[in-house]
């Protein structure tokens, strides 16, 4: 059965579906602001699994991993620095 899926790919798939279930379940628990944090953490976990296994990043060089991380890192710069404005602005949203 050489055409069967490799074990790690199968496991990753199962883990992804399990995480999907978990995130939906946790979204219905009243946890306040933690709901968003948890949802994002699970999304990140899923991303890591997809990248490491499906996208075979774990077999790649550090350079490739750095490239994969670069986009997310720069996005975090964008979020963080625009955030400094909106979080500390007395007039956002337009009232307040």
């Amino acid at each position, binding site marked *: 059965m050489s055409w069967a899926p490799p074990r790690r790919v199968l496991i990753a798939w199962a883990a992804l579906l399990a995480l999907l279930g978990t995130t939906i379940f946790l979204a219905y628990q009243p946890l306040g602001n933690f709901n968003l944090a948890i949802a994002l953490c699970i999304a990140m976990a899923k991303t890591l699994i997809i990248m490491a296994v499906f996208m075979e990043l774990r077999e790649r060089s550090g350079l490739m991993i750095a490239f994969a991380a670069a986009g997310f890192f720069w996005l975090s710069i964008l979020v963080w620095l625009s955030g400094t404005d909106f*979080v*500390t602005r007395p007039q956002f*949203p337009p009232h307040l």
Partner: protein
Amino acid sequence: MNPRQELNYLNCEHTLRSWFLTTDHKRVAILFAATITMFFFIGGGAATLIRLELATPQGDLVSSDVYNRLFSMHGIVMVWFFLIPSIPTTLGNFMVPLMIGARDLAFPRLNLTSWYLFLLGGAVTLYALFIGGVDTGWTFYTPFSTMYSNGHVILAAVGVFIAGFSSILTGLNFIVTIHRLRAPGLTWYRLPIFIWSLYATSIILVLATPVLAMTLLLISLERFFGIGIFDPNLGGDPLLFQHLFWFYSHPAVYIMILPGMGMVSELVTCFSRKNLFGYKFVAWCSIAIAGIGFLVWGHHMFVTGQSVFAALVFSFMSFIVAVPSAIKVFNWTATLHKGWVSYDAPMLYALGFIGLFTIGGLTGLFLAALAFDVFVTDTYFVVAHFHYIMVGGMVTAYFGGLHYWWPKITGRMYPDYWARAAAILIFFGFNMTFFPQFVLGILGMPRRYHTYDPALQVWNVLSSAGASVLAVAYLLPLLYLGWSLFCGRRAGPNPWNATGLEWQTSSPPPKHNFPQTPRVQRGPYVYTPEAVAVAQNA
């Protein structure tokens, strides 16, 4: 062997098809060069009309609507269709594989695609500009652009959007090429600084341009459907647009200037016959500028009602990003120390660059200082500042590079006398045009003004007079470089006795650059005493 018989990338094929479907990076570079030269003169034409209009304070040459379209056209064309692609897509495209000893870029077909996208984007934008134009300025600020402008905003934005993908593809190609196609022995610290700076540029192209693309898409949607996420009437925030726009457009300034800095590093070393002072520092400064350059965009928004805290952060980062630029200037100066300085035309451009860039950079500090920015932002002080960086810096470096590599690209030498005359004329014409604009800014003349206080006329007339000198000076190279194509003396493989790999192949280079892949054993600027002596006697 008769040099006329020697096959090179120019004479190996002659059909139109061989040009328009070429994947040779050198030919693609020529295609780009022709295109951006056209855009340079379109943008320059608009600038000429602007300066002509501003010679009198009443606004009597064109109507204010036409004037607004002129400066928008000048900005859009110059920024996206000349400055950003200029060095990377022409000199970079031509030289990157040559300088790293490769046969081509990593993705030659992508490279050609990039040109076609650029052409398409340019055509769409030009169409928008000529069927009625855009009156938003190159910044497309909402809500003016989305709800009040009566220009062809969507078309222009779509054009820029398409051209943005051309930039992304070029940057991507360079990154992969520099990582994967270096000749054997060519380690990172043996790379010419020009390559380092193009690598840094590519990082910005790849990571900033998509945000611009998304922003332009959003304002196009907002304008098309009449609803959108920046509309203050619907709870949106126009400042979010400015954040997204400047997240691209501030790093874009570094897209423009970094290749210029790399260019000057090549020129200063070659014409001083000396290794670059502080090579590693200069190399890493390029990367540092590319990185920190992403953290400063809010300094365009100090007076917009952004939070005071954010303004402080952005001001601080802006001062930090100026440090690596300052380091570079010091290193270029120190490179001359105990060198063998010659005054060929490219070197004159390089020296001009150092002077003009220094003034542009220092006035950048004025604008980074928060309280002073409150006074002079949105005035001619800003206009003068960024023209010192972009025209005084970037365009001067581009001309320097063009003159430096012209013999390599065409195999011909240009008339030396004329080239030096043009370099000097550009320097003086430039200062005459833009220095008075600093004064105008201090006197409180806002930018994008069609009419102005008659008391300011004398400075505007000075500036306009300088602009006419500058216009002539920019036309000169077109003439003598064009002449040299047919009548210029033939240049050998290495007319400057420079050290780079690109000089080790014939001029113009053969189709696949090198007869055999070169092996590299030393750094980029190792001028041996013998090499110096040859140059000394030449």
